[in-house]
Structure formats: structure tokens, C-alpha cells
């Protein structure tokens, strides 16, 4: 089992009703960010609209939307759901 920590912010945090969660991914399936995205939709179907526009940050670095399937996850990784930002 690959257990990662998922962080939720802003609208994602409100909809998930939590700011973080431990999520288990099947280690045999060589989990990636794309795997995590799909798993999060199963666990938190209410995040569907937010995930459409959200980007992931893996260990505090953005993951290009086009690279999610190529970005492997390992146990202990911190994966943040980053809805559209609005700093300034």
C-alpha cells in the first residue's frame, strides 16, 4: 500500500470538510498523480467541480496537468489539491 497525505485548500477544503487526509493507493499499480486524482473523485465525489480546475502540488512543487500520469507517487508523499489561486 502507498499511503500519501492529501491536503485540501480553499473551496476544496470546504467541500471535503477537512484540510488533510491519508489516502491509500494500490502500490502494485505504480500509483501516479493521475491515480490519486481518480481515487480522490471516488472518495470525495463532491470535489468533482473543483478538481476540474485544480492543479496538484507534489511535495510543494506544482505538477503540470499534462504530466500527472507520468508523475509517480511514493509512500509519505504530500499531495496538495490547489484550486485556482487568488493571492495579491
Amino acid at each position: 500500500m502507498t499511503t500519501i497525505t492529501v491536503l485540501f485548500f480553499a473551496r476544496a477544503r470546504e467541500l471535503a470538510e477537512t484540510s488533510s487526509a491519508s489516502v491509500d493507493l494500490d502500490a502494485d499499480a505504480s500509483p501516479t498523480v493521475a491515480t490519486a486524482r481518480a481515487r480522490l473523485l471516488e472518495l470525495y465525489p463532491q470535489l468533482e467541480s473543483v478538481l476540474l480546475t485544480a492543479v496538484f502540488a507534489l511535495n510543494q512543487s506544482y505538477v503540470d496537468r499534462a504530466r500527472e500520469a507520468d508523475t509517480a507517487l511514493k509512500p509519505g508523499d504530500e499531495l496538495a489539491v490547489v484550486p485556482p489561486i487568488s493571492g495579491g
Partner: protein
Amino acid sequence: MSKDDVPEARVRVAIAPNAIDERAHIEYVRDARAGAISVFVGTTRDTFRGEKVQKLSYECYEPMALRELRAIADELVVKYAGDGDEGNALDGRGGHGIRAIDIAHRVGDVGAGETSVVVAVASAHRKDAQDACAEAMEALKARVPIWKKEIFEGASAEGVWKANGLGAFAASEAAS
């Protein structure tokens, strides 16, 4: 650029839970070798498209926000490194480039008219500081994981999460 050429500059970034004192940030970057300090102060507005804003609430992914702020500052120090030639200042550049950058962003509840963000840049000459200050804000709005929620008077207590619509989020609804 070889290691010896990496410009020497003071860099400081912060996520601020309390009111921002702009003066402290100007003093941080002030440098007798620099002639120019450019400052941008973002303040919260009391209306959005005619609707009265009661308050704004900011949250951030703090360790990543600090990391991105630091990266933005470091990148600008390298980009506006100056050529070391004080004589070459006809276009408002030249000389020692950026001497110091200080960026702070407020989190938590912020009342209308209060400061949400401050960027201060000191450079030998004017244009470097002004351009770097503008670019820092542009990058901050595009990259730094900070979120703003507007709570309107009389409207639903839920509030509205804003979106800058820049960078990786350019497809999102643009605002502010």
C-alpha cells in the same frame, strides 16, 4: 553565469498573520548603495462589481507559499543582476542591480482597505526596482498558493472564492 557572478542581495519573504507595516518593509530593503525602492501595496477593496464587500479572508499553503515567494525573489535577483557599471545608467538600469527584495502576504481576515500584500525592491537604478516589483506581483498572483474569499454584505454568508486566472490556472475564470 558562474557561481561568482551570483548577485549578492538580501531576500526576505513572509506570510503575515497580522497587519502589515509597509514602513518596516521599506526599511528592510533600504540600502545606501541603492538609489531606488519600488513598493507595491495591495489593499482589499470594499466593492466588487458594485457589490459591497464586508471582509476578505485569505488562506495559504504556507510552506509551499514561502518556497514560491522565495523562488520568485531569487529569480528576480538573478534576472535584474545589473552590469556593475554605474556609468551605464542611461536607460535607468546599470550598476549593482537589485540589492534587496522583501515580500509579505497577509493571511486570515482582512478588513476593507487594509494591506493584503507588500512587495519592496531596492535597486541601484529606478527601472530595475519598478520592473522587478511589477514582475514579483505578476508571479505571485500566478504561482503562490494563496486563496482569497470575498464575503459580501447581505449576500449568502458562504462567500466567494476568487481566482486570478493566471499561469497554470489561466483557463479558470479571471478576476481582480
